[in-house]
Structures are given as structure tokens and as C-alpha cells.
């Protein structure tokens, strides 16, 4: 059997300055070349995706004077999935005088990422976090305020300081609308050309530089090419490889995967975050999962029946036949253990046959004690909107019977490899937000995704992109260039192939099956044996896909199944790489738990001597592994413990 991967040369981030960490960003900004304002008008930048990272980048680059061409698959840039983020956004403002600082946010993020992120990047993220809040307030983002008129903060995800800014449970929506409005202003001024309902299907690389993209107009089916001086991918994460996730239905990996196939390295694809408090699946019809804020675990108690196969209603199971397993296994943290631990524990009890609800895939989150202790009114004041959401979806009353929850894929820490300038291994291709791998290591802290997306788009990229552009001008490329023609032909050929199969299985049936494989073998707990098996299953399914998939209609119309088919085809390839990455990383770190690497009492065990690196994969028949070694000068690695 051929090996799953081959070893390649190590890589390094050469863009980051060294020296004292607190001055690195300042020095990078100073050493970066600048583009004369008069010349910016002559430079075109393509931005793919209009979420927090893409929207803020497009608006800011347009304000700076560049010609921006922005793409999204939704019908409006306002609908990107950043809009669904509930909890909040972290910033080292220390408005609470509780000992927070840039350094503490940096420290918490590196530690939270289980020491698999770059110190330089994380420090910069913490540094610009405060500017984000200023910027958003100036744009009119209606953050929660106190009676004195100043901004309110809360503590989030187990941190000891209150540094999370929020707008009810709709922080992502409000931040995105701020970026969207800034974009619309630039569209009105003619500085951004906006293409909604357009999907990027290929990257154009000319002379080793990213020079454009091939897009499909989702309404007419027309394929066109768009050339620019630089391309920015802000296309989000790839959680939908699991079919069921908290992502929007349209979220996909195609933009980044196409770039990966054209030479951009893909880093740490196996790092996925699985959120413990989601509403469980109700049946085979299920099309997506909905997350509920993990603040529910502050007052709810998690339990399952002691005996396997006990399917009495919750109310009929006496207290001594219940297993409050988190409180039992983790007496000091109890129900408040971190996301990955809570998720894995839920999976374990369900694997033992003690799960509740349809298919035995759920555990109880019980508020009976909280209601007795605090009163129904207090519980309602705190969690009323979440209870309402639960009731709307499940039709069950959480005041009367315990909620059922189950973990769901929620965020992907991996993504295209970028250097300190957010530039991928293809010059001229920049990657921002969830689409890159840069700041969260093996695990992301709560309320940090919004921070990273906006940090990249508002403050980092606009400062580093200029350096690349100032090294130009780059030779103009037109649509007749052989590379452009070839890229376009690749897209047309692929669409023709998808339509030509005309088999007997729907795209969704394949996607669902792929999701089952990924969830089973590359989900919360991974084993060498399981991953090898998964790789075989994925390869077989992919082959079947290209023989049996049925895509109705034509390419010259609005064809939602054709869109899905292209995305699922890329998910097959990504899924395989995720399993290979998970297989090669024989340690447990953050969102990646290898059953072979655990402490005697069943906790995640890192192997810093062997695996303290970023795994950056090069595309090929057999993927090639390039390691970027991580060094920790400021935050020294320790093993987590929540017992």
C-alpha cells in the first residue's frame, strides 16, 4: 500500500519580524512598503466572501483607494454566515479594570489554542482587538450598554476577565451589518464592484502569482474570468464537510480548495471545533444543526440514565438512576469543562448506549434544579430566548422537561497557510478570517472568531497587502492568457462532467454519507485504525460519486444542485486530507483527540517534542507535508487539566 503522505521541506514564516513581541507589528507596518495614494486607483483587488473578514477588508481597501471587486454566493453581502455568531467579540480594553491586557488576551489565546498557534500572530490579534471595538462603535454597531451609557462586558467561555463585548445574542449580525454598510457606501461611491450570487470556482495563477479568479454567475450560469493585482480569499470555514454542522447550507471549501490545488498549502485541516450545546438531530431529514449559547451550562446540569437502553421519559427516571457524568468525572469544573471535553464526554456516554432522544444521540441538560433554586422567572430572564429557540425547533417545553443537547461541528481552526502578512504560499493570494489557519492553533476560544475576522479585514490585511502591491507593478494579464484560458476550461470541463454523469443518487445523499464517515472517524475522537478506514471509505465514495451522482438541469441556469455538486466534490478531497492530517498527528491537541494519546485517566495528551509544528500540506496525488516549527518564547507550554 502506498503511504498516505510524503515528507517535504520545512517552511518558515519569513514575514514576521523578530525581537520584542510587543513591537513586532509596529515594526512590520513601518518596514512594509507603501503604495502612493494616486497609484492605488490603478490597482485592482478581488475579495471573495463578504463575511466579517471579507466585508471589512473590501470596505477598508476601497476606502484606501484601491479598486475592489467583491464576490459572494448569497444574494446580498449582508447574508454571509458571520451573521449567525451569537456570543460576542473579545477585546483587550480592560474597561472592567479586572487585570485584562493585550498580554493576557495573547496569553489566553495561545494557551487556549493548546500551543499550536504562532505567538507573533496571536499577539498582533490581541493588540488590534481594542481598535475593532472603537471602529464598530463609530459605525453604529449597537453593542449592549450599561445605564451610564458605557459599553457592557461579560466573561465568556471560562475566562477570568470580562472582555467580551456583545449585542444581545446577535453580535455577529450587528458586526456584519456594520461591515456591510461600510461596503455599501463604497459600492455607492463606485470603489467596490459587488457581485452577489457569484461563486468562485477556480484561482488563476500566472507566473507563480495569483492574478484572478474564474467565477460562475449563479443566476445565468455564465462563466467569466476576473483579473486583478491581488486576490483575497475570505470564504470562511469548511465545517460543512460533516454535512450536519452549525454552518449555513451554502458554506463550502471550494474557493480555498481550488487555491490549494493551485499550490497554496493547507494547514492543520484536522483541527475542527465541536460545540457541546447544540440541538440534537431529530431524524434523517435533518439539514443542519443549531447551536445554543454555552452559557446554558452555567446553570443546567448534564446527565444521562445510568443504565444503557433506559428509554423511560426523563421525569420517570429517579435521581439515583441518573448519571451526572460531567460532575462525576470532573468534580472541580463539573458542567463547565471546556468545549472539547464536554463534547467528547457526551459522545462517550452515547457510545455506551446511554444517549437519549431519537437515535440515542443526545444527553439531557436539566434546569429543574436551577428553576427550584432561582425560580422560574430568574431562569426565564437569563435564558428565555434560548428556551424559546429550543421550543420552536423541538416542540418541547424546556421548563417542563430537560433539554436534549448533542455536540455539533461549529468552527474549523485549520485553513490555508499564511505568513505574518496573511499571504499564502502563492504570492498575491491573501487569506483572511476563518479561511486561514493563523491564530487559533488547535482550539479557538469563545468570542475570538469575530475578533480575528475583523482584525484581519480592518487592520491587518490593509497594512500588509500594500507591501505586496508596492513591489509591482505586475504585468497586465488579459482573458486570452493561456493560464486564464486553461483555468476557465477546467471549470467548464468540471461542470460538464458533473452534469454528464446523470446517475441515480442525489448530491445530498452523497454529502450525507460523507458526513457520516467524517463524524464517525474524524469527529470528536480519532484513532489510527478508524482514520485509515475512513480514507478508504472516502475514496470509494468519491469514486461512486463521479459514477452515480445525478445533477438535474443544465449549467446555463440557476441550478442549486449543480452548485452543491461542485462543493461536495471538493469536500471529498478535503475530507481525505483531514483524515490524513489527523492520522499523521499522533497526539491529542485542542479539537483533535487521538484515542491513542491520552493520559491514564483519559485526558488529551500533547506531544510537544514531536508535534509542536504547523502541518502545512501541499496538494498532490499523495499530499506532501511541510512543517513549520513553532517556538514559544513568551508562553511556555503546559498540559491542560480540568479535574
Amino acid at each position, binding site marked *: 500500500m502506498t503511504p498516505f503522505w510524503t515528507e517535504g521541506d520545512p517552511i518558515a514564516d519569513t514575514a514576521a519580524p523578530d525581537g520584542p513581541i510587543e513591537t513586532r507589528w509596529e515594526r512590520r507596518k513601518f518596514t512594509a512598503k507603501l503604495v502612493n495614494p494616486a497609484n492605488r486607483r490603478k490597482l485592482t483587488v478581488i475579495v471573495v466572501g463578504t463575511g466579517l473578514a471579507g466585508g471589512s477588508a473590501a470596505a477598508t481597501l476601497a476606502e484606501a483607494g484601491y479598486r475592489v471587486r467583491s464576490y459572494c454566493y448569497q*444574494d446580498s453581502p449582508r447574508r454571509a454566515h458571520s451573521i449567525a455568531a451569537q456570543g460576542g467579540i473579545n477585546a483587550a480594553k480592560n474597561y472592567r479594570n479586572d487585570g485584562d491586557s493585550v498580554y493576557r488576551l495573547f496569553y489566553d489565546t495561545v494557551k487556549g489554542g493548546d500551543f499550536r498557534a504562532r505567538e507573533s500572530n496571536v499577539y498582533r490579534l490581541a493588540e488590534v482587538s481594542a481598535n475593532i471595538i472603537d471602529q464598530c462603535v463609530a459605525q453604529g454597531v449597537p453593542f449592549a450598554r450599561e445605564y451610564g451609557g*458605557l459599553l457592557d462586558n461579560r466573561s465568556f467561555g471560562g475566562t477570568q476577565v470580562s472582555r467580551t463585548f456583545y449585542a444581545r445574542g446577535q453580535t455577529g449580525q450587528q458586526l456584519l451589518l456594520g461591515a456591510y454598510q461600510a461596503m455599501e457606501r463604497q459600492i455607492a461611491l463606485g470603489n467596490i464592484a459587488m457581485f452577489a450570487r457569484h461563486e468562485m470556482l477556480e484561482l488563476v495563477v500566472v507566473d507563480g502569482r495569483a492574478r484572478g479568479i474564474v467565477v460562475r454567475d449563479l443566476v445565468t450560469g455564465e462563466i467569466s474570468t476576473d483579473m486583478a493585482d491581488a486576490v483575497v480569499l475570505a470564504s470562511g470555514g469548511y465545517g460543512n464537510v460533516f454535512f450536519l454542522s452549525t454552518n449555513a*447550507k451554502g458554506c463550502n471549501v471550494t474557493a480555498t480548495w481550488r487555491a490549494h490545488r493551485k499550490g497554496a498549502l493547507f494547514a492543520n485541516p484536522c483541527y475542527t471545533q465541536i460545540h457541546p450545546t447544540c440541538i440534537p438531530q431529530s431524524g434523517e*431529514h435533518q439539514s443542519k444543526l443549531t447551536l445554543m449559547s454555552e452559557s446554558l451550562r452555567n446553570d443546567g446540569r448534564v446527565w444521562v440514565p445510568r443504565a444503557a437502553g433506559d428509554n423511560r421519559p426523563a421525569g420517570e427516571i429517579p435521581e439515583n438512576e441518573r448519571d451526572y457524568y460531567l460532575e462525576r468525572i470532573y468534580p472541580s469544573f463539573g458542567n463547565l469543562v471546556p468545549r472539547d471535553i464536554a463534547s467528547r464526554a457526551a459522545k462517550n456516554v452515547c457510545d455506551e448506549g446511554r444517549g437519549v432522544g431519537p437515535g440515542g444521540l443526545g444527553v439531557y441538560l436539566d434546569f429543574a434544579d436551577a428553576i427550584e433554586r432561582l425560580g422560574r422567572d430568574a431562569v426565564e430572564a437569563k435564558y428565555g430566548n434560548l428556551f424559546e429557540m429550543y421550543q420552536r425547533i423541538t416542540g418541547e417545553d424546556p421548563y417542563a422537561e430537560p433539554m436534549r443537547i448533542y455536540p455539533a461541528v461549529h468552527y474549523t481552526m485549520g485553513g490555508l497557510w499564511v505568513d505574518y502578512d496573511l499571504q499564502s504560499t502563492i504570492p498575491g493570494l491573501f487569506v483572511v478570517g476563518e479561511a486561514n489557519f493563523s491564530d487559533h492553533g488547535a482550539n479557538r476560544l469563545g468570542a475570538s472568531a469575530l475578533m480575528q475576522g475583523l482584525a484581519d479585514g480592518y487592520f491587518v490585511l490593509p497594512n500588509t497587502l500594500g507591501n505586496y502591491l508596492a513591489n509591482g507593478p505586475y504585468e497586465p494579464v488579459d482573458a486570452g492568457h493561456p493560464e486564464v484560458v486553461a483555468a476557465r476550461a477546467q471549470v467548464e470541463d468540471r461542470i460538464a462532467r458533473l452534469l454528464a454523469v446523470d446517475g441515480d443518487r442525489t448530491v445530498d445523499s452523497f454529502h450525507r454519507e460523507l458526513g457520516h464517515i467524517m463524524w464517525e472517524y474524524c469527529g470528536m475522537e480519532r484513532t489510527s485504525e478508524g482514520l485509515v478506514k475512513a480514507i478508504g471509505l472516502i475514496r470509494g465514495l468519491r469514486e461512486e460519486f463521479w459514477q452515480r451522482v445525478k445533477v438535474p438541469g443544465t449549467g446555463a441556469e440557476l441550478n442549486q444542485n449543480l452548485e452543491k455538486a461542485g462543493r461536495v466534490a471538493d469536500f471529498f478531497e478535503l475530507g481525505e486530507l483531514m483524515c490524513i492530517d489527523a492520522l499523521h498527528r499522533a497526539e491529542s491537541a485542542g479539537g483533535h483527540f487521538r484515542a491513542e494519546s491520552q493520559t491514564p485517566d483519559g485526558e488529551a495528551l500533547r506531544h510537544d517534542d514531536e508535534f509542536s509544528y504547523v502541518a502545512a500540506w501541499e496538494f498532490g496525488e499523495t499530499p506532501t507535508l511541510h512543517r513549520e516549527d513553532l517556538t514559544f518564547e513568551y508562553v511556555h507550554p503546559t498540559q491542560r487539566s480540568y479535574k
Partner: protein
Amino acid sequence: MDLKLRVWRQKGAGDKGRMVTYQVTGISPDASFLEMLDVLNEKLILDGDDPIAFDHDCREGICGMCGMMINGVAHGPERATTTCQLHMRHFADGDTIDIEPWRAAAFPVVKDLVVDRSAFDRVIQAGGYITAPTGAAPDAHATPVPKADADAAFEAATCIGCGACVAACPNGSSMLFTAAKVAHLGLLPQGQPERGTRVVEMIEAQDAEGFGGCTNAGECTAVCPKGIPLSLIGRLNADYRANLLA
């Protein structure tokens, strides 16, 4: 559950379109309305028919992409609920359900239940923003905002831009959408410098897009999945009156 669906089918902007009847069987009451359509579409594909096109994305009621008239009511019978969050348990076995796209001159049908709502983006382009280029912001605490104003601005800002207000309005008016943005920004101190021009420009843009005028019928707020109140239109009117001749 077994249901009879009558669905608007229209191949494209140039096609005339018609209602087509479908039978769906074995639907779980726990399925969402869109999942019910997924099930139908899977069957249509395997039968060699054209699946029904409909817009959707987050399926958790926040992106604003989904929306259809269900038995003549925008987003269906449940109040303050988007189509994706409507579940089949609110229907009875054997029901007949009529499904149509949003109908408005400003929202032309793209295909089946998919409409073009880009007019909303152009209304925002006319003034639905605060001019605050990146980097120019003062400290977030430089200007305190009374909690009541911040909360009211937030309530208005929860609009998801789904277009149900237009679909339900007897006049095909987007006044609730525009009023929500005018109120959101007009309630905050940061929004004051552009408050006057904003409302006038946005109303002009909305008229130019071909939306009708408001007659205070209140159908919009009744179907709004976020419960945006009709009173915001009064606020818009006041702002407009104050700046009409300015």
C-alpha cells in the same frame, strides 16, 4: 404526514409561471418547512423532474435569505418566525399548502420561489450607513449612549432584510425595512451628522426602485420575523418631515 403542495413554478424571469401540485408523503412533524421541501426535491430529482428552486442559507433564522408566501402569509402561520424556523408540526396531516414567491415589482422572480432583492442593497447604498472610515474612530467610550437609545437602536437593527414586509404589504412598500435602518442609525449619536440626508436619500431610492408607499396598514409588522414595530415608520416620517425642505 402526507401533504398536498401547490407551488409556484417559473423557469426564469421571462417565463409566465404557474402553480403546480405535488404530493409529499411521510414527512416528519419535526422537520422544518425547508426540510420538507428538501425531501420533495430529492424525490423530484430521482424522478427526473426539475427540483424547486428556493433561497435559503443559515437555516437558523438570521441570514434573511429564505422566505416564501405560505398559504398567503409571508413566512407562514407562526408569528415572528422565518420560513426555515417553521416546523411541520404546525400543519395537519392531509393539509393543502400553497407556496408562492414574494411578489413585488422591485423583487422580480429569478426562478420558482427565488426573487431578486438587490433593491434592498441599493436602498442601503443611498444612505443606510455611518461614514466612519477604518482607523478614524475615537475610543469607544468617548461618547456614552443612553442605554434606552442603544437598546432601541439594537431592536431596529435586528432587521434581517428578508423582504417579508414588502411581500405582505398591500402596497408593496419597503417602508418598514427603510424605517428600521433610519431608526437604528438615527437613535445613535454617531448617526446624527447624516441623519437628515440619510432619510431623504433612502426614501428617494426606495421610490425609485418601484416600492409602493406606506398606508399604515400594519401587515408588514405582523409578518416580520424580528417583530420590527410599526412605530419606527412614525420616526422615519418625523425625520423626513424635518428634512423635506432642508
